């Protein structure tokens, strides 16, 4: 008699994304693809000034243009500031503009050309004001204040806001001042500069709004956080959030840039005024001029070690430029501790200040603060290794945190860490695969990590799993899939728990009315929390299935196994019922259904471990990076020859998605390292297009080796940890370290453009 052996059927395999087939055929509907009868096209009029008082807005000529249905300005908005963390902006400017590209008015017209003409007919009189343009002088007493009422703004997290200071965070431990005077201490110090980076998703922001004639508006938008953004839209309209339904269809990439309501309130205002459906799709110029980007950063960093390489002290001062409005949690500054990376440093003072300037908004970009801090720390550790005449890998191994040690923020104790294994695997790979170095070739290593926060940060979500009388399984969950594969992951978990093939599972996601709520995708925490919540809902359904089937089959519940859409007796699989049959037995008419639910990870499952989770960093996301480069000493051009990363993912739930996230993250990091930089002059972004803002392209991709380390987390689904952000964190320092190895010159400003490489080489040759 056949007996069933328990083995993971879906989790851990290379499962193609079900939605990939929709996307490959062109039938996936993104927000900008939504077509409604009578739909109008919208355009936004944006500020040409970095800082100016709005004297008057005359829309009469635009209003008279045939084909124009609605014009909105700040006067049409409820006078409430919005923002996903700090509420520091209006959907449309009121009284003054504070950055070039800030929305001032918007038009809905019968077609795009008419909307464009109408925009040009709106007459805005500005009175230009002195602008804050240099972040390093933003706090000087002679600078104008961008947000005079800053202290009264609503912020999700406490922050030190005053003048043009968005936040100020000081993470100190030990006695750093005394530590510097330790006899024999070897110290190194440098200043690093990092660029503004665009998320540069291929799908520009888009939204379609449809009024229902009774004061309610439905919006399809490229948002990864519909349940949060709904509030901003409702606040702008001056209606309760229940009057706004926000649906997130297929999203064309996010990387941090689609979590806040920028265009949705505008399109909703227009639809309400026109009482017709309205669509707005941003141009690439608008994306790169007026939307958020990774804050640039200036970092002064000093580190001291004993001659044997033991790190003793670190002092770091970071200055983030968050632009005129800040879409970063805590102004990024709360991440000051990431300067200490995954290292044991007893004495440290890590200070982060973020400042407002009259430039385009700062916001989240894949691993907020990670690439900035790691560029400084991992570059400086290489300089230290050189000075100590120590192998850079040995220096890192010696100081890397072990399980049971407190993380640099002081907020938790490290558990389930794969850091050492990542470093050791990188060392082995280098010995095995790197080969000899040719002329002007070099090798660099760097460690990377993302968000050493205790797992209790796993924030709220909810899910339902329905098994219907036809055997179909429908998962409903509020989370969005911006391309990271959340839809697939969630279906895989259901497939695993219920023993149902992937093809039988439908997923309904991210609709503020049709699905349970969710805080939104991001922070490399989605698999951790949503994987759990979906699993609990599936287990709830499973318990119901087993109870009914045990009665029908007259066996103990423990005897039953679910697989291939059936529930059968473990020791005699010929005794079985289909899930459809069980579901039809569950209800009355018609058909019947089994509905499993779960709400809030913390309450349902983790409450028993609340203390532990508040204390332990259960799912640390660590990686080691190795780059081999060749530098042309004549042109400064860097060619990346090989790239390797070992990353601890806990458990790869889907091999395709997991390695895909890491490969994509590395290339995202290569862009940051080599070419991506929004260049701003007098408050205007000069390279607001894709021929001057340079993204990595196919011919420049080195062979990338992804080495998965799997040290399971305790509470992640099947042991999984976050994956998506860490891979882009360590790339720039790995490249900079490789460049120094190749040509002996240190570049301290990212991206490492040919000009900067040549300048560093000349400075070295001149003995500077």
């Amino acid at each position, binding site marked *: 008699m056949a007996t069933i052996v328990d083995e993971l059927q879906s989790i851990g395999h290379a499962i193609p994304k079900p939605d990939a087939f929709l996307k*490959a055929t062109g039938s996936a509907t993104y927000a900008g693809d939504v077509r409604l009868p009578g739909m109008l096209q919208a355009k936004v009029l944006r500020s040409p000034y970095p800082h100016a008082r709005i004297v008057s807005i005359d829309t009469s000529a635009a209003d008279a243009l045939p084909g124009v249905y609605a014009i909105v300005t700040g006067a049409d908005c409820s006078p409430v500031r919005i923002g996903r963390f700090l509420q520091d902006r209006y959907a449309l400017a009121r009284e003054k503009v504070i950055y070039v590209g800030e929305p001032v008015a918007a038009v809905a017209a019968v077609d795009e050309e008419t909307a464009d003409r109408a925009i040009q007919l709106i007459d805005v009189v500005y009175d230009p004001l002195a602008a804050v343009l240099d972040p390093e002088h933003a706090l000087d007493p002679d600078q104008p204040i961008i947000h005079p009422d800053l202290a009264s703004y609503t912020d999700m997290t406490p922050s030190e806001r005053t003048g043009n200071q968005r936040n100020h965070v000081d993470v100190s431990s030990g006695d750093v001042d005394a530590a510097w005077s330790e006899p024999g201490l070897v110290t190194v110090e440098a200043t690093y500069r990092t660029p503004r980076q665009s998320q540069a998703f291929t799908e520009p922001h888009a939204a379609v709004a449809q009024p229902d004639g009774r004061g309610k508006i439905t919006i399809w938008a490229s948002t990864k956080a519909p349940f949060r953004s709904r509030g901003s839209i409702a606040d702008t309209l001056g209606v309760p959030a229940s009057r706004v339904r926000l649906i997130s269809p297929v999203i*064309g990439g996010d990387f941090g840039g689609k979590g806040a309501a920028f265009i949705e309130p505008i399109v909703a205002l227009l639809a309400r005024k026109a009482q017709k459906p309205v669509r707005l799709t941003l141009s690439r110029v608008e994306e790169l001029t007026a939307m958020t980007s990774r804050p640039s950063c200036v970092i002064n960093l000093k580190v001291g070690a004993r001659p044997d390489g033991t790190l003793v002290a670190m002092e770091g001062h970071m200055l983030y430029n968050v632009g005129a409005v800040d879409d970063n949690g805590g102004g990024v500054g709360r991440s000051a501790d990431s300067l200490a990376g995954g290292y044991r440093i007893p004495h440290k003072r890590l200070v982060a200040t973020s400042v407002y300037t009259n430039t385009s908004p700062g916001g989240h970009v894949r691993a907020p603060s990670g690439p900035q801090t790691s560029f400084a720390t991992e570059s400086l550790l290489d300089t230290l290794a050189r000075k100590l005449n120590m192998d850079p890998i040995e220096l890192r191994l010696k100081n890397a945190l072990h399980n049971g040690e407190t993380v640099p923020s002081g907020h938790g104790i490290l558990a389930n860490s794969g850091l050492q294994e990542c470093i050791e695997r990188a060392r082995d790979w280098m010995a095995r695969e790197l080969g000899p170095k040719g002329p002007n070739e070099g090798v660099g290593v760097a460690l990377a990590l993302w968000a050493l926060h205790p797992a209790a940060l796993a924030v709220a979500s909810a899910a339902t799993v329905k098994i219907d009388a036809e055997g179909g399984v429908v998962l409903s969950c509020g989370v969005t899939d911006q*391309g990271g*594969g959340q839809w697939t992951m969630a279906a895989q978990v259901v497939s695993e728990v219920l023993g149902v093939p992937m093809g039988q599972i439908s997923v309904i996601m991210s609709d503020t009315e049709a699905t349970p709520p969710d805080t939104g995708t991001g922070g490399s925490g989605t698999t951790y929390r949503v994987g759990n919540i979906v699993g609990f809902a599936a287990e709830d359904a499973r318990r119901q299935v087993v109870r009914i089937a045990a009665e029908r089959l007259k066996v103990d519940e423990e005897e039953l196994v679910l697989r291939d859409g059936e529930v059968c007796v473990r020791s005699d699989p010929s005794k079985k019922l289909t899930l459809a049959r069980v579901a039809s037995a569950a209800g009355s008419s018609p058909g019947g259904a089994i509905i499993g639910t779960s709400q809030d990870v913390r309450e349902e499952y983790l409450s028993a471990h609340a203390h532990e989770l508040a204390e332990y960093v259960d799912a640390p996301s660590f990686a080691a990076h190795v780059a081999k480069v060749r530098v042309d000493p004549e042109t400064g051009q860097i060619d990346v020859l090989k790239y390797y990363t070992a990353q601890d993912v806990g458990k790869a739930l889907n091999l395709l998605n997991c390695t895909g996230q890491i490969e*994509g993250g590395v290339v995202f990091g290569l862009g940051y390292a080599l070419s991506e930089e929004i260049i701003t002059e007098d408050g205007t972004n000069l390279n607001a297009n894709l021929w001057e803002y340079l993204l990595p392209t196919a011919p420049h991709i080195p062979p990338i080796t992804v080495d998965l380390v799997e040290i399971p987390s305790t509470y992640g689904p099947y042991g999984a940890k976050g994956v998506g952000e860490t891979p882009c964190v360590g790339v720039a320092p790995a490249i900079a370290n490789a460049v120094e190895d190749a040509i002996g010159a240190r570049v301290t400003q990212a991206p490492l453009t040919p000009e900067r490489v040549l300048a560093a080489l000349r400075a070295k040759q001149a003995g500077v």
Partner: protein
Amino acid sequence: MKMPISMDLNGRPLTVDAEPYWTLQHLLRDELDLTGTKEGCRTGNCGVCTVLIDGKAVKSCLVLAPQVAARQVTTVEGLAHGEELDPLQRAFAECGAIQCGYCSPGFIMAARAFLNENPSPTRAEIADALEGNLCRCTGYVKIFEAVETAARVEAHNGHNS
């Protein structure tokens, strides 16, 4: 003023009235509702709007509607034969070459034109052929693998399109 334009679109003859200043991208997306052809920059830099004109990969944002008169235009919607996907569509989905998917139709069309010319390419040739298409999610690695896989499948099936 609108003018009638006759073309072959996805294997069927079509006459449509178009303004002479409309781009092919606009004609496809906003007049014919063929939204598989995407819109990412309108300057020819991202490649998400790539379609085939007489078998050549072209960025439809850089072509005016009247230029396709009497031409054969193929969009991503015209690639599959009924329920049978083009080998490239299947390989992109199965190799993990699709994450957010917004660039995928453009990549698949560019790769289609390329494989028709060069059915057994090296990886370097694939990378060069796809230089005009941006992908922000995958890091291109699995896209290369998908094109290689499709080329192998077509060689095995004696594909000749």
